């Protein structure tokens, strides 16, 4: 039987006998289901053949087709419809923009597959969802969109990359970020600020082994595949978009002391001016009590709100875009220009981007292909020392600055450097010094990024084609940092006259793959097999120079640097480095479908990488997937009335976690020396301890799922259960310091991520003019370390990695409240016994009872309504069941930092024996303890978008516009959380005065001509 089929296949391949049937002439018009405007450029093919045509500018078409055939109408962004010809000669249809339908085809880096014949777990996000979001990086826009994809922002600084984790972290030391592919070539992760997401047609998120094994040693964390917009044949289409808006801070909830609370606190604790000039202070330096009262009165009038000084209320936003597309059947193009400008809510921070893309597709007889080029340039201005407890961090200074510290006297900023000229001040100038630094320094990163790639396909035979993709992803950072020589900050620099730092950081990645694909669709058999060779080479280099003795006449340029000599202290500091990696792979991809009912997907990949020692250099990865379209079975015939799709899927395979892209990740196996110096002469020091057994972390994933659509696709449900086990896990073996190192990376452990992805969407109400729709996605992920090799656990500061616990578990001494008799903190030892503060010992008392910072429950949901041209959609996202270390409280309610402003928590502190409170007396030293581990679960109203499309009837009369849309939206509207810090959302376990996410409002106009 099988032999017969194979024989038939070969015969078919050799003979290529075309089917002959009677053709008839068919014509018609294709319109938009919404508004009824004509759709030019819709592709119409005769099912099962390559014959077809495209609609003209009026949406009309004409072709010859056999009467027993079926016409397939497809248009990117719209649902594909099939119509049996029968005896019709005119077929008029309308297509709907339904983003659910975008998933009909799935595009991987190595080809395109019909979704019904794909056995993997994939989620698609339509470019429609991304194009207007006022965020600079597209990974932020994925928040709450895909089940099992957890994207979190670590900073509200425009242009900052998110932490993206798919189905839980599967590595301790390696990267947990997914692999990014754009139009077939690898894209550097975390570098999206210069990409314009409005150019994206779809973003497909691949989560299981069907796709990840295909990417072998890079795929274990999932793969995000981006396809960019293509031109459509037909008339030239010009589009323009403009939007304006502003950002503001979200929670102006600074629970720190105001002036009255501060002065009272100082008076009661007998320090600072509040005590110095208190009527109760008999030892005051000012004996005159009336004068003291006057001084305190004038201080009360100051009441500086530092958050108002450091943060902007209306940070401006604007974006403008022009795009042009068109072409004929042989050549199509899409080109766009975009300008994006977003101010951050912190003083000085912002991003300006210019991006350009040009995609050209061409098609000959046997030859077809595409050339895609994108260039982006962005200028990012950052704040000082973000994410640190340093007093010069804008967000820390906003907390630390005292309310009786007035920054300006007669318009002059009074800081530690000039305070004595004003007769001295009563405070430590924490706010003013930070402000002085902000005003006299720059922190600029200019990013240039280009992706250039070419896809070619040559049809050798009817069923065999050769293909190649080659491309380069290039990125360059140009960092500059200037410190004004004529400033207090400049006087602290080496040489005491400011500094100018310039750095370059370059990244270059070449992807080339070359392959042959055989495909055959005959009778009930549908085969496809590809053999591909791929080579990827990366190179990275960076250099930095810092010059001193800045000539104040030449600010913000290296020209202002004074050359150093032995006496002036201006000797510049230089540094830099370079490294690279290479990966060669042989790939086999196979698919077989029988009767649209049963599908088998196979992938095999052999990877050779420069990042592992030669003995482990080559490794095989593979996956097997099976799919069953239950609805196609005869016994389901009755169900087809209600069900549109019922598909079961299962897959299993192996992939590996890529190494971090840095020189340690690239050569982690090697014992090396790196350069140093002593007394002006070159030296070397051991840099890495090396490990000759170094190997990849292998991830094995089983995925079982199903897709259901019912009631003419009004309800759609996808469900997946997965079990991903990472073996050979890199564990940082803790070393005795006598070895000269603290850790050595060995492949010893295992971690498991097991959970479910659920994606449910549908139309709740669907009438002629009105649609109410909703969707939700949800992921539950149980992460557990199952093995750590020779050890059971190892501590990492206030975190622990322990067998049986999830990654990211907190590890800290448990707080036992304040002793009402002494006012001192008490802690639990490991036996649960309460011990006094003096016996605190983190090394013998820490416990891991406080959960993890990786949320087990994540997801998002949206709700929308369409009435004629009006659309309203709201998006929510959530993360539940996780805790983070709030280090802000450690500084804000800490007697060691009482000279800085402090939290109002102090107002309820212990004062006398018998007081029952959770805040100890000020003489009680603050230690790291479980009080700082706080629930960071949140539900965020992320986006609200309202748009109105002018009716087609009106537009037709203008004869100019084919689409006019106005819209308003709000981003990050509301957050429900019990978290006490700035922002519950973060990319790591600890909160340390990070830049919180802003709330943004925009209004825009879109015109298509």
């Amino acid at each position, binding site marked *: 039987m099988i032999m017969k089929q194979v024989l038939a296949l070969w015969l078919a391949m050799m003979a290529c006998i075309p089917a002959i049937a009677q053709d008839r002439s068919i014509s018609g018009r294709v319109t938009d289901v919404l508004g009824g405007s004509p759709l030019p450029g819709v592709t119409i093919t005769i099912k099962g053949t390559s014959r077809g045509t495209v609609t003209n500018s009026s949406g009309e078409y004409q072709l010859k087709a056999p009467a027993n055939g079926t016409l397939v109408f497809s248009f990117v962004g719209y649902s594909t419809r099939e119509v049996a010809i029968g005896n019709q000669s005119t077929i008029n249809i309308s297509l709907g923009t339904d983003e659910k339908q975008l998933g009909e085809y799935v595009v991987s880096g190595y080809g395109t597959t019909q979704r019904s014949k794909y056995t993997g777990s994939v989620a698609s996000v339509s470019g429609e969802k991304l194009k207007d979001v006022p965020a600079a990086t597209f990974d932020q826009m994925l928040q709450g969109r895909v089940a099992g994809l957890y994207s979190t922002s670590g900073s509200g600084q425009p242009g900052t990359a998110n932490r993206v984790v798919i189905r839980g972290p599967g590595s301790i030391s390696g990267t947990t970020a997914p692999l990014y592919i754009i139009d077939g070539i690898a894209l550097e992760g975390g570098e999206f600020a210069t990409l314009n997401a409005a150019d994206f047609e779809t973003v497909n998120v691949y989560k299981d082994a069907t796709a990840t094994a295909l990417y072998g040693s890079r795929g274990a964390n999932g793969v995000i595949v981006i396809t960019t917009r293509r031109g459509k044949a037909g008339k030239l289409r010009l589009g323009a978009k403009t939007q304006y808006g502003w950002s503001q801070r979200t929670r102006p909830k600074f629970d720190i002391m105001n002036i009255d609370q501060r002065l009272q606190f100082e008076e009661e604790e007998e320090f600072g001016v509040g005590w110095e000039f208190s009527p109760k202070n008999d030892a005051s330096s000012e004996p005159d009590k009336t004068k003291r009262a006057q001084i305190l009165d004038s201080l009360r009038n100051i009441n500086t709100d530092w958050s108002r000084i450091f943060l902007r209320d209306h940070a401006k936003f604007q974006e403008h875009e022009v795009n042009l597309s068109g072409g004929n059947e042989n050549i199509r193009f899409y080109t766009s220009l975009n300008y994006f400008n977003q101010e951050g809510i912190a003083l000085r921070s912002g991003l300006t981007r210019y991006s350009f893309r040009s995609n050209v597709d061409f098609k000959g007889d046997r030859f077809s292909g595409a050339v895609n080029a994108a260039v982006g340039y962005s200028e990012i201005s950052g704040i000082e020392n973000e994410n640190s407890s340093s*007093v010069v961090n804008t967000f820390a200074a906003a907390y630390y600055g005292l309310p009786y510290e007035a920054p300006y006297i007669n318009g002059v900023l009074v800081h*530690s450097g000039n305070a004595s000229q004003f007769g001295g001040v009563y405070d*430590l100038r*924490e706010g003013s010094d930070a402000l002085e630094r902000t005003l006299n320094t720059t922190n600029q990163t200019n990013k240039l990024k280009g992706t250039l790639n070419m896809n070619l396909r040559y049809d*050798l*035979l009817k069923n*065999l084609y*050769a293909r190649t993709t080659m491309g380069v992803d290039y990125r360059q950072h140009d960092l500059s940092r200037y410190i004004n020589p004529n400033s207090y900050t400049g006087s*602290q620099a080496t*040489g*005491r006259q400011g500094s100018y730092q310039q750095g370059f950081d370059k990244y270059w990645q070449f992807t*080339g793959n*070359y*392959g042959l694909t055989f495909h055959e669709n005959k009778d009930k058999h549908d085969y496809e097999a590809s053999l591909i*060779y791929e*080579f990827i080479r990366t190179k990275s280099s960076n250099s930095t120079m810092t010059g*001193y003795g800045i000539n104040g006449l030449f600010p913000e340029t290296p020209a202002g640097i004074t050359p150093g000599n032995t006496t002036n*202290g*201006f*000797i510049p*500091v230089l540094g830099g*480095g370079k*490294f690279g*990696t*290479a*990966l*060669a792979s042989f790939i086999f991809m196979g698919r077989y479908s029988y009767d649209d009912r049963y599908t088998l997907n196979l992938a095999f990949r052999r990877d*050779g990488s*420069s990042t592992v020692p030669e003995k482990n*250099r080559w490794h095989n990865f593979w996956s097997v997937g099976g799919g069953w379209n239950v609805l196609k079975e005869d016994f389901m015939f009755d169900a087809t009335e209600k069900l549109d799709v019922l598909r079961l899927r299962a897959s299993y395979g192996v992939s590996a976690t890529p190494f971090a892209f840095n*020189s340690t990740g690239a*050569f982690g196996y*090697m*014992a*090396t*020396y*790196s350069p*140093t110096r*002593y*007394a002006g*002469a070159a*030296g*070397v020091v051991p840099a890495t301890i090396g490990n000759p057994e170094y190997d990849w972390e292998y991830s094995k994933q089983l995925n079982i799922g199903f897709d259901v659509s019912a009631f003419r696709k009004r309800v759609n449900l996808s469900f997946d259960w997965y079990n991903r086990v990472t073996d050979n896990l890199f564990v940082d073996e803790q*070393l*005795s*310091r*006598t*070895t*000269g190192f603290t850790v*050595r990376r060995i492949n010893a452990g295992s971690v498991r991520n097991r959970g479910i992805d659920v994606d449910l969407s549908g139309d709740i109400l669907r009438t002629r003019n009105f649609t109410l729709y909703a969707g939700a996605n949800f992921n539950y992920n149980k992460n557990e370390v199952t093995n750590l090799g020779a050890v059971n656990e*190892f*501590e990492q500061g206030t975190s622990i990695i322990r067998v049986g616990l999830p990654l990211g578990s907190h590890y800290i001494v448990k707080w036992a409240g304040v002793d009402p008799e002494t006012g001192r903190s008490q802690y639990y030892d490991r036996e649960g016994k309460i011990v006094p503060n003096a016996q605190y*010992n*983190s090394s013998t008392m820490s416990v891991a009872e406080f959960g993890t910072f990786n949320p087990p429950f994540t997801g998002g949901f949206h709700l929308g309504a369409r009435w004629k041209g009006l659309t309203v959609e709201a998006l929510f996202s959530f993360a539940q069941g996780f805790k983070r270390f709030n280090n802000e409280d450690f500084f804000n309610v*800490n007697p*060691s*930092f009482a000279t*800085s402003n402090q939290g109002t928590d102090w107002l309820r502190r212990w004062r006398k024996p018998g007081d029952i409170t959770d805040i100890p007396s000020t003489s009680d*030293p603050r*230690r790291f303890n479980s009080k700082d581990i706080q629930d960071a679960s949140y539900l965020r109203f992320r986006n609200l978008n309202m748009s109105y499309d002018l009716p087609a009837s009106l537009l037709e009369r203008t004869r100019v516009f084919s689409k006019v849309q106005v819209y308003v939206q709000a981003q990050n509207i509301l957050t429900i959380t019990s978290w006490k810090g700035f922002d519950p959302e973060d990319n790591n376990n600890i909160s340390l005065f990070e830049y919180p996410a802003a709330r943004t409002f925009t209004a825009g106009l879109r015109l298509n001509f």
Partner: protein
Amino acid sequence: MKRTFQLVYILLAAAILGTGCLGDLGIKPQDRISQQGAFNNVTALNIGVLGVYAGINYGATQYITTLLTDEATMPRENNTGRGVIPWRWQYDPGTSAEPAAAWGAYYDVIDRANRVLAVIDQVPATGEDLITRNRLKAELLAIRAFSHLELLSYYSVDYEPASPGVPVMTESKLSKPPRDVVSKVYQQINADLVAAKGLFPANYTVTNRQRIDPLVVTAIQARASLLQKNFDAAITFATEVITARPLASAAAFPNIWTDLSTAEVIWKLKRDNGEERLGVNYRDNTGRIIWAPSFKLMESFDPVNDIRFANYFKNLGTTDVPRWTAIKFVGGQAALVNLADAKLFRTAEMYLIRAEANARKATPDVAAGAADLNALRAARITGYTNETFPTAAALLDAVLLERFKELAFESARYVDARRNNRQINRGPKDVALAQGAVDLTQDDREYWLPIPQAEVFANEHIAQHPKWLQ
């Protein structure tokens, strides 16, 4: 048939293209070199030895000594939180970095030295090269001995020969060593120093004092002998150094601290821009005083006649509202404030070693000890008149007080207390912000530096200090 050929061509082309690229997988690091075969000649060896010098972290011992003892007090303007927990004796083995810093730094140095020592004898050398190779080996042995001495001084349970000391490392390897007994550490220190001395060329002297020469080895021997209570040896070695390198004159003394003079400097570590700035722990680069000299320390000086006072302390405020700061490590370059060379051994210490040895040896020689103490004071104090001491105990008290003064902020005070079984007592004017950290006795666990928690986690054979287990 034609098509079949076409297919074969394509496959062939792909195969050739493929294999052509495969050769590229052997990417080598560019910022690093493999340790294997890194040192194949004497020049390369010297580069390795410089890397060992680069690792010596003077700030680690200097800072923890300042924080734990009565040298410093916390000014209100220290709003940075830096060092506050150790200074208040609220640290534990896990949470504070300062008590653990010297452990890591000196074992790194020992490991670096051992890596070079493992191959040094195989590096081909004849004639001049051989002399250089021997000298480099001597330097490595001396650094290894010095590092073991520092580790023992700070982290051993105590200094009795049979007590648990610190692990002795004589080769670079992956191991989990237990504490060796103190006597074994002493033996290794002494053996390395003797071996080092024998390898130096005759009359070898480093004029800029930035690397080790035979006199440095003698100075290390003097300090090591005092710790071992080998007082006669301490006297012999100290005498050798004192003879070779006299005390600085009153005129030269200020220049020691600005690095303009190497008078009485036996060994110092050169510090360049971009390296550790020893002054930042006292007053940071923004001008904020982090740790101020204690009033107890300042008031022990004669501020007018003692030249040390003006060279060690400065009032940045007014008489009414003083802001005292330690300026010993501010350095000599106004443009590079706080950048100063790390003076590891000075002749003054040799006088004090000899005086202490004379006071503590089985048959004390109070006169000889007093003579050394008076000689040092006379060099520092204008119009000084010699003092006599009724007993050896009185002499020892005076010597320890003089060490407190002379060697302030030079990593002496903490080990001095431990060597002589003394408490740490802070002055009443120095404890306003101490939250009760006034007296630290040998009964308090914080008196004894613990083995860092990271070491205990990694190395189950190492025993924590017993005081930390109570």
